[in-house]
């Protein structure tokens, strides 16, 4: 890739652009290991979705007003009056969901291919922080429409932080800006969502990418026995891998638009601090933690739910074997599969809990612990607690 001669000459008379040209050329034609395939594109997809979040977020900020009297109305304005507002909000909301999904798949690929091992432990740790930051983005952004679901999901979510021993109440007060979820909370979440987190995530991603480019992609060879990449059989970053990424980007855009069209993001009812709707549930990526917390008292539940993220963070320092190939790492792979299965299972149970579901013609009520109870055919009313509060949909039912 060359600059037009006149621009090149103009720049060359003022800067030593040979250094920049060599750097760009090295990066563009960097040889990648032979095993680099489509699974390796999920990191770039996450980055693409982050850019999507930034661009659509800036567009949403033009009409959004972060006060309790105007937040809901301004989102309704975006959805109904602003040209293509429904599309911009759809891209932002579904983009957030897909971004978390892509980061999770990217982490699973890294885990099962043993790419977190020496010397890439720090890249993995930064990746865990990127996941945490992405999820925090979701949590803070969820409140901003100021509707019933977002209000009560935030009330429950911030209430959980109060269970942290010693400092929980202080953290809760700092997060909420007062005792309850109010306009102060909305302003704080807005600042976190549009100013603090974007910068933090940008720096985390930049460092993550820098380390990835400096150390290169991991091969499947044992730790300490990696051979230099054979340039004859390597996959050039450009054009081979970039082409693969282009294909996946096109598929992703198709998926994103399909989701927006088939399951448009709704707004629901405006937040009412005096009426809790029934069956309030968090977004899908918090469902497994939400369900787990039901089985334990608050403080113990918080402690138990902290174990998986801490394990994730310190895993490269716990798994000291030199093997990378999944077939030669039975314990690590089993732990990984069990963790994924448990997360999905708890998530599904969390989704089904406190709902009535018809399975093969028979109606069941899933209680708060996810235990199904068969309902008689004539019994149309669900068991309690369905008699209290206004009817509402779950967060995951868009």
């Amino acid at each position, binding site marked *: 890739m060359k600059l037009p001669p006149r621009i090149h000459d103009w720049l060359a008379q003022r800067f030593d652009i040979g250094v920049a040209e060599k750097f760009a050329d090295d990066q563009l034609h960097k040889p990648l290991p032979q095993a680099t395939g489509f699974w390796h594109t999920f990191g770039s997809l996450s980055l693409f979705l982050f850019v999507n979040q930034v661009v659509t977020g800036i567009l949403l900020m033009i009409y959004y007003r972060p006060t309790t009297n105007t937040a809901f109305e301004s989102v309704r304005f975006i959805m109904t009056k602003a040209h293509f507002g429904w599309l911009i909000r759809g891209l932002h909301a579904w983009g957030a969901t897909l971004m978390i999904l892509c980061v999770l798949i990217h982490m699973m690929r890294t885990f099962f291919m043993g790419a977190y091992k020496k010397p890439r432990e720090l890249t993995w740790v930064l990746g865990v922080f990127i996941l945490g930051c992405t999820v925090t983005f979701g949590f803070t952004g969820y409140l901003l429409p100021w509707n019933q679901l977002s209000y009560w999901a935030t009330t429950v979510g911030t209430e959980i932080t109060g269970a942290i021993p010693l400092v929980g109440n202080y953290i809760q007060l700092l997060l909420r800006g007062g005792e309850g979820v109010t306009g102060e909370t909305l302003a704080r979440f807005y600042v976190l969502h549009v100013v603090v987190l974007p910068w933090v995530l940008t720096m985390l991603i930049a460092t993550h990418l820098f380390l990835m480019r400096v150390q290169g992609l991991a091969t499947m060879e044992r730790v300490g026995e990696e051979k230099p990449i054979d340039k004859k059989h390597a996959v050039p970053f450009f054009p081979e891998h970039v082409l693969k990424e282009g294909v996946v980007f096109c598929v992703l855009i198709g998926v994103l638009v399909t989701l927006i069209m088939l399951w448009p993001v709704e707004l629901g009812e405006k937040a009412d601090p005096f009426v809790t709707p029934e069956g309030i549930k968090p977004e899908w990526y918090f469902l497994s933690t939400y369900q787990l917390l039901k089985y334990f008292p*608050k403080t113990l539940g918080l402690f138990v739910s902290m174990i998986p993220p801490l394990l994730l963070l310190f895993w490269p320092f716990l798994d000291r074997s030199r093997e990378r190939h999944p077939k030669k790492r039975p314990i690590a792979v089993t732990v990984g599969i069990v963790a994924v299965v448990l997360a999905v299972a708890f998530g599904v149970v969390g989704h089904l809990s406190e709902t009535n579901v018809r399975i093969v013609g028979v109606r069941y009520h899933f209680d708060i612990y996810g235990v199904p109870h068969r309902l008689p055919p004539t019994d149309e009313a669900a068991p309690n607690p369905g008699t209290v509060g206004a009817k509402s949909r779950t967060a995951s039912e868009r």
Partner: protein
Amino acid sequence: MSDEKRISRRSFLDWVLTGGLVAWAVGFVAPVLSYVWPAQRRGPSTQTVSAGQAADFPEWQAKIVAVSGHPVIVVHTPQGFRAFSAICTHLGCVVGWDPQRREIACPCHGGFFDLDGRPVAGPPPRPLPEQGVVVINGEVMVKPA
């Protein structure tokens, strides 16, 4: 004092500079932290709030009223009116009245409270704090917590 324990001028200056930097950092961070700390504090409120006329409030029914900005549930029992904080002690949802069970119920995680505010089912760890309620000239008045 032995020679080994004497502090050299260089290490003394190191300590002073490090201390100065720490003091500078604390001086910078402390106002920022105190700025983000919630500034408003509500003092105790003494204002009672009406929950409506007793004559319009049938037995075994309940109402949610706002007292000092907090939801309070008022229940009309055969023994009289009872009022409790309507914020569930589990995760902060606003409780409601279940007319079939004749209990206070939380819509979030299936917690139930009896007419004394004690948890009888589900995950709530503590009773709902009770608030005073009186009937004055036929009007149900709820006292602040």
